[in-house]
């Protein structure tokens, strides 16, 4: 195949998303072991400016559809993991908030099954994802009208208060 190898293309992502796609936190997500379809959809939406982002739409535009396919495949085949940088200055999980979030997350767990561990074609794993990332995403989903999300997700976002969503984020982040 002409062009860079899958590793050459994908390894450049590690500078932000961590070695082998496992991020040491506090806010850039781990992408290792995420569903192939999900990764591909995200990159494509960033590329087309259909998904608001800070930097990813600028980055995604550097890749062809074929590149995105290769990168999505590469990371989907890697293993999900947790890697805490010793010096990470992130927000830490509050057990009380996680406890409060547990019953509130019941609705979410209809799709994000097994405490958020489950993933299928287009549902990403959220269990054990970085707390600050989940908080940022909750904020995006709750407050950004343009943020693409499934109807079911939107209705949950509307139902839950900001404080509730914060508790839900703590809950999912606490699930290992």
């Amino acid at each position: 195949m002409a062009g860079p190898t899958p590793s050459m293309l994908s390894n450049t992502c590690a500078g932000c998303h961590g070695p082998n796609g496992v991020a040491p936190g506090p806010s850039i997500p781990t992408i290792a072991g995420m569903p192939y379809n999900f990764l591909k959809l995200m990159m494509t939406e960033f590329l087309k400016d259909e998904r608001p982002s800070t930097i990813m739409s600028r980055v995604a535009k550097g890749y062809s559809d074929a590149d995105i396919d290769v990168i999505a495949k590469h990371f989907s085949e890697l293993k999900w993991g947790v890697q805490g940088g010793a010096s990470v200055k992130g927000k830490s999980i509050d057990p009380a908030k996680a406890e409060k979030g547990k019953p509130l997350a019941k609705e979410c767990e209809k799709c994000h099954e097994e405490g958020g561990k489950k993933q299928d074609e287009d549902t990403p794993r959220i269990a054990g994802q970085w707390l600050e990332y989940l908080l940022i995403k909750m904020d995006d989903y709750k407050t950004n009208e343009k943020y693409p999300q499934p109807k079911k997700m939107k209705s949950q976002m509307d139902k839950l208060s900001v404080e509730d969503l914060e508790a839900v984020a703590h809950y999912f982040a606490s699930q290992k």
Partner: protein
Amino acid sequence: MYNLSRRNFVKLTGGLAAVGLTSPLLTGSARAAEGKKRVVIIGGGYGGAIASRYIRMADPNIVVTLIEKEKIYYSCPLSNPVIIKTRDLKVQRWTYENLVKNGVNVQYDEVVEIDPVKKSVTTAKGASFSYDKLVVSPGVDFKWEAIEGYSEKASEKIPHGWKAGTQTLLLQEQLSAMTDGDPYIIVAPPMPFRCPPGPYERAGLVAWYLKQHKPRSKVIILDAKDKFAKQGLFINGWKELGYNVEWVPGNEGGKVTRVDVEGMKVFTEMQEYKSSAINIIPAQKAGKIAHMAGLVDKTGWCPVNQKTYESTIHKDIYVIGDACIATAEIPKSGYAANSQGKIAAAAIVAAFKGQGEPDPSYVNTCYSLLSPDYGISVAAIWTFKDGQVTKVSGGVSPEKASAAFRKQEASYAESWYQSIMAEMFS
């Protein structure tokens, strides 16, 4: 990570005559290294550490020796917040134990000579190492002579803070001791230099500190240039945050030509500035060893094949990171050095296997902070097309954005740092 066939590799190297390592430090491992390919890497920073790790990952049969003069690596990225005491220098401190665990032979020594004909390097401690391929990633050196009166000695009183560690702490002490009402003077260098947005990140963070602790003071940037990286975002951001920053571009007399270290004064062609807090970031060139080895051209930087980072002056020597000349405006950044380290590693492994030059992919993302909660970024992707490096996408953060957006980018700056450091050192 690379899908290389080890069998082919063994076949290729198996028949080669053993060339023993001549280092007295290495006699034990010399036998084990017989017949194996040897890569020597000079400098364990953003470029060298990554190259060493990626070569080992691609093929554990390659003997990789990393020669680094310091036992502790202090990261420049995110060292500016240390100056204003919102970050501890400890968070910038990294060591090489994990590279050793990953099979890299780390030598704490300084390379003082490269012999491109005999293909060996000599160190200050008198050891010598033969190589099949050499990677040179020594970072930058300063053109002390560019400002009359400035010198390495002078930088103990008027720090540059362009290599992190002691220099960063000197800037921190100087800032907290400065007289309220004095200007904080930053002398910014001409292009090209390490981290183009760096002086301006520093200016904003210092202004944030002054606002709280020395409200009668302001920041004055005396610049050799007429424009700078992420300029619009910096200037608007400073305004938005209510900072007192005055930028004097080169074409309005910003170029500093002389310094009076005792009197704590700097001079442009038009004016003199006096203060209890001065930071001079000198003009730069490729690290000293690159000059000693004749790897530089008349620009003071190292010309390389843009597809592999192999020197166009000496064969089998790859120059990556700040020291090389990267085209298509790839900046002298840690992220770029990381990308180049991976590209050179792949090129070296492919060359050992007798394969052609692999197609590279180059990325840079670089965050700057204007306050602990206000981040901006630049990103770019390049490919190698029609014989040259071509930018395919990129750009800076939007000019108008919410406080939440800027805060997200500040948080991503921290996350970026943890990720890229983990890739090098954990």
